[in-house]
């Protein structure tokens, strides 16, 4: 059962910030924001304990509108700031919201290392296949052959599969959803936040203004409907042939594994270091051993 939009609006939007937002009519970002707010609401996370960090681009503006501890960082670096916040205050729920170019081009290195490092952080990546804010240049997820303002002859490079990249980089939890499957998205974001370890939710979204228009993919409604047609649940995809999967993409949970979470490992390390420090102090007191730091 979903709460009325009114509850979400009253409780989580920043009323002291003068709207309107920067997003175009029909943009998928609002659906992602809605799913994220509903997930936080369902999990009953106190607003003071939620930290949203974002990078640059249309997705980067999301934290501006919502009433949490919000950090709009530099392009591609949201996860590095999130890492500092999480290690300084592990009790906070730290969520990074990024775009496809943000997370996997300029921030690609931080993304794979955050996955490998496995801190207890959630990354939400809104993938609309383009750099929307700067005018529709090709991104790491722009499909081969697509037109963009920097690939007018058709794109000659190949796209990243963000979710699969996260899996092989070592994330504990990886899921993919779309802005068509809004309730499903809400559920997966909840799972990702609850999951201990680095969790990733890739959200397939529409930029009908920059990407769709140049590639004759239709308006916002048509693009969002195409996600319904092309999305295949992970389980069903396993029973399909490569030919059947042509032009489709999987949605659902791609990976959910248990491994030591380094947020906790750092605690263990501190305890070990303190025990060792105490041991040295005691030894010195007993034997009068002189060490350089005396």
């Amino acid at each position, binding site marked *: 059962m979903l709460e009325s939009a009114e509850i979400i609006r009253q409780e989580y939007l920043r009323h002291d*910030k003068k709207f309107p937002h920067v997003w175009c009519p029909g943009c998928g970002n609002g659906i992602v924001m809605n799913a994220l707010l509903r997930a936080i609401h369902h999990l009953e996370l106190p607003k003071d304990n939620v930290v949203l960090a974002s990078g640059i681009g249309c997705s980067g503006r999301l934290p501006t509108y919502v009433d949490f501890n919000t950090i709009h960082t530099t392009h591609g670096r949201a996860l590095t*700031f999130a*890492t*500092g916040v999480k290690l300084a205050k592990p009790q906070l729920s730290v969520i990074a919201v990024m775009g496809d170019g943000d997370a996997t081009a300029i921030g690609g290195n931080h993304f794979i290392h955050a996955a490998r490092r496995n801190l207890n952080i959630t990354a939400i990546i809104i993938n609309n296949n383009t750099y929307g804010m700067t005018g529709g240049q090709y991104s790491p997820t722009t499909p081969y052959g697509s037109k963009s303002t920097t690939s007018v002859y058709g794109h000659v490079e190949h796209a990243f599969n963000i979710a699969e990249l996260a899996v092989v980089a070592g994330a504990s939890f990886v899921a993919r959803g779309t802005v068509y499957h809004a309730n499903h998205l809400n559920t997966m974001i909840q799972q990702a936040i609850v999951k201990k370890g680095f969790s990733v939710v890739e959200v397939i979204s529409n930029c009908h203004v920059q990407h769709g228009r140049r590639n004759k993919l239709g308006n916002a409604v048509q693009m969002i409907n195409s996600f319904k047609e092309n999305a295949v649940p992970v389980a069903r995809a396993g029973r399909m042939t490569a030919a059947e999967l042509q032009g489709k993409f999987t949605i659902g949970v791609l990976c959910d594994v248990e491994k030591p979470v380094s947020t906790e490992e750092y605690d263990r390390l*501190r305890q070990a270091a303190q025990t060792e420090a105490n041991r040295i102090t005691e030894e010195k007191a007993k034997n009068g051993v002189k060490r350089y730091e*005396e």
Partner: protein
Amino acid sequence: MGASEGQKKILLQGNEAIVHGALAAGCRFFAGYPITPASEISEILSVKLPQVGGTFIQMEDEIASMGAIIGASLAGVKSMTATSGPGFSLIQENLGYACITEVPCVIVNVMRGGPSTGLPTNVAQGDVLMARWGTHGDHPIIVLSVSSVIECFSVTIKAFNLSEQFRVPVIILSDEVVAHTREAVVLPSQNEIQVFDRITPSVPPEWYKPYADNNRGVPDMAAVGDGYRHHVTGLVHDERGFPTQQPKEIEQFLNRLHNKVTKGFSEIVMTKSVEMEDAEICVIAYGSVARSAHRAIKDARQQGIKAGLLQLVTLFPFPRKAVDSALRQCKAVIIPEMNMGQISREIHRVNQAGTRIIKHNRIDGHLITPDEILKHIINA
């Protein structure tokens, strides 16, 4: 910082002394990336920080290190990174973010020869103007330099204090010679050390304006997670922290950013004078070169030449007053630097009296010797 009863001399390297200074100042978070000649700072902090409940993390690059220390500082923990030339280039992006969001943090740059990979194991002072102007846009910043092991300790504490007091990132310019020189020092005990912590808001959260002006020009800073939910952005923002494009708000904000440092000149600007009272010839130096200069003026005095040393501890904001009075007092000023003349440019700018300025620049990866400076003093 003299030796008192019961305090022992210890043998420390410059990089080690920076670690001791940082811990004494309350640093509890360090993020870094391995680089010569700064790596000892990372290595020692990886041992010591967890012992005091702090966090050491080695990031994937210096961009990430800078992001992480800003994140930790936003969460209320005093933070530092340490690097050298190539890494210092990479930190510049997020350094600008720390400037505009007014996040206290300390960046150590142990200078080596450049440009690019340059001379990884050799000394240089080529990053002085980069420390001032490296990140894009007009921005206030504080740059300090160290010339000895004990200064590595005391200036690092000062760097944290200034950073917390003014909410400005502070850069410590060390160099390969200072970093790897071992000296016997006596460190003061913790209760002799003055530590400044950022001022946190005393108003209830609903009244809190994270970037509101006050008589210090430095807004009170709430930590993430302390109940003062607010927005932090690298966009120019209003006093609530939200992006603005109103010319009036933009101007007010940027003026405050610069004015808070201008207002603090007397606390920020530090110089040391040696034998300057009756000096007719002055050497102006900083970093390891100041040690050579110290020796050179002593030798000059033995030969009956009235030479003095003005050591710049603060490089930016530029110690204009102290330099100006040295220029007015002396018939010649000698500026030895291990670069092509980055501080001498600033001194030329201040030189209203038209005093003779003698540059001495060495860029071959070796320290300027006392004899080189002494020759200039004798010929001046």
